[in-house]
């Protein structure tokens, strides 16, 4: 008895929603709801960035009070020695580690791709470990290794050059950053490698190229896109790192994240917000330029195809 009423009701309900008018209304409302939800979430995602931007334009040292608009923090950034050191440390580490990780990551990816299936999947698995391992564990592991290496190189934790005005290089931090960005380069290059024809490399060798030239002229151009993605990821990971730098710096090398961490809840120069806003804006500008250029290229290609050239 209960069951038949339930079936009848559910059938009526289904029929009600199948009516063209009802269907139309439901469609409109669900589309409004979907868009509203999506844009609300995007807004929440951007809320911290908007707050950082407002803080960078606020004419007061107190981040909790708004006292008028200013651009002075963007200039005073260069006068704050502690922040400048943190910024240059961050950028120099990011550039160097990205460069090293990109070169070696590409090389290792080519190597891994050329292994037999079993060895390859073992290497791919090993390659995931630095990505999936917890940052604290990675940081601690590297610190332990460096502490042991201190027996051989007593100054390993000391950044050099010792009396530099601005940036110094910390070998331990640099190695740590290379360690955690390498897997991202390998991961982005590997899929591109499986797209290329293995006979191309053979052809280059048959035509008299040395193996190194063949790799540089045949394989590398074909995997350019993957290398670029990997490079971008490596840079992103390095510039934003906190935990691993924290454990491997040995206490005398600050990057921007460590600068911020040391000043949470204390008075912090709003210039750091200016730096971050500037960085975010530059990324957006670079992306827009890249997008416009690739769109233009595609348009050209389409035109070339349609005119039969």
């Amino acid at each position, binding site marked *: 008895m209960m069951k038949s009423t339930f079936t009848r009701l559910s059938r009526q309900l*289904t029929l009600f929603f199948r009516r063209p008018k009802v269907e139309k209304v439901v469609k409109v409302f669900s589309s409004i709801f*979907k868009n509203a939800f999506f844009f609300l*979430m*995007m807004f*929440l*995602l*951007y*809320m*911290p*960035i908007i*707050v950082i931007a*407002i*803080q960078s334009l*606020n004419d007061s040292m107190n*981040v*909790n*009070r708004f006292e008028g608009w200013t651009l002075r923090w963007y200039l005073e950034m260069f006068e704050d020695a502690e922040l400048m050191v943190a910024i240059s440390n961050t950028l120099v580490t990011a550039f160097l580690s990205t460069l090293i990780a990109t070169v070696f990551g590409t090389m*290792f990816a*080519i*190597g*891994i791709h*050329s*292994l*037999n299936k079993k060895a390859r*999947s073992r*290497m*791919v*698995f*090993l390659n995931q470990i630095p990505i*999936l*391992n*917890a940052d*604290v*564990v990675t940081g*601690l*592991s590297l*610190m*332990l290794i460096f502490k*042991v290496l201190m027996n051989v190189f007593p100054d390993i934790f000391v950044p050099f050059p010792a009396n530099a005005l601005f940036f110094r290089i910390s070998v331990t931090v640099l190695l740590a950053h290379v*360690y955690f960005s390498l897997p991202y380069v*390998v*991961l982005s290059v590997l899929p591109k490698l499986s797209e290329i024809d*293995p006979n191309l*490399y*053979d052809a280059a060798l048959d035509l008299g190229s040395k*193996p190194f030239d063949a790799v540089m002229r045949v394989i590398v151009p074909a995997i350019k896109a993957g290398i670029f993605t990997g490079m971008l990821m490596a840079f992103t990971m390095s*510039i934003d790192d*906190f*935990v691993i730098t924290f454990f491997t710096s040995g206490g005398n090398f600050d990057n921007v*994240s460590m600068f*911020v*961490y040391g000043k*949470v*809840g204390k008075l912090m120069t709003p210039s750091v917000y200016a730096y*971050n806003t500037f*960085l*975010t804006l530059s*990324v*957006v500008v670079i992306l827009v330029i890249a*997008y416009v250029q690739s769109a233009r290229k595609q348009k050209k290609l389409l035109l070339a195809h349609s005119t039969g050239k």
Partner: protein
Amino acid sequence: MNIKKLGRLSTPYLVWLSMLVLVPLLMMIVLSFFRTRGVSFVNAAFTLENWSTRLIDRSVQVALMNSFQFAGTTAVIVFLVGYPMAYILARSSFANKFVILVLTIIPMWSNSLLRNNALRNLFLSQNIVNDLLSPLGISFAWNLTGTKLAVIIGLVLTYLPFMVLPVYTVLEKMDKSLLEASMDLGANKIRTFFKVTFPLSFKGVLTGFIMVFLPSFSGFAVPYILGKGTFVVVGSIIETSYNYNINFVSTLSIVLVAIIFLLIFTVSKVDKEGESFL
């Protein structure tokens, strides 16, 4: 084929990874059974206290509970919010999905500590946005800083893109004719979603879950910044005591590694081809 000879290029990587992954892990295991001064084994004494009394200490238990609570809640909320976002994005008729996808990634280029610090400032009763909005008659004083809710909001906003991206990737790759087949066979939209779309996108969900759960479980910066340091988590014990008690810190790290390994092992059972990671 000559290309096979290039395989030896990967040998240094094998050495590098084993040196930096396996050696420290072995060191931690050894260290966890001793009482030492730093990494030096002079006057080292064998002990089981790190694994017995220390690990069941009240403060450690609380930290583990807090970490699980933060990471679990975050992962669930991120899934509930991120999945629909990825779904809307993948099925949308927006003129350019790529642009919108990039928009979800851009926040990752902004320093994550600074973003959470901005949230901390925003969640104080006296904040800059309230100052800006109060002339318009809008009050924006939430006073959340120092609460668990604030920590979870911070974690959710930090790791949301980590769920949206992998789910979007699987949804985008999915064979659309399967959906048409399901509809042709009489399933309605809701049934099609639960019987076809969701099971096929499950790999992406698992990847996203791991990418969100692990860092929010082990991280200590977000709970410190948004919790005003009131909530002890596993990461913060490691952070505060690695300098004077490397032995217990090693024990905790092994516990973390075990949890991570268990999670990944479970996922690899579900996802045999291992293609869902990134």
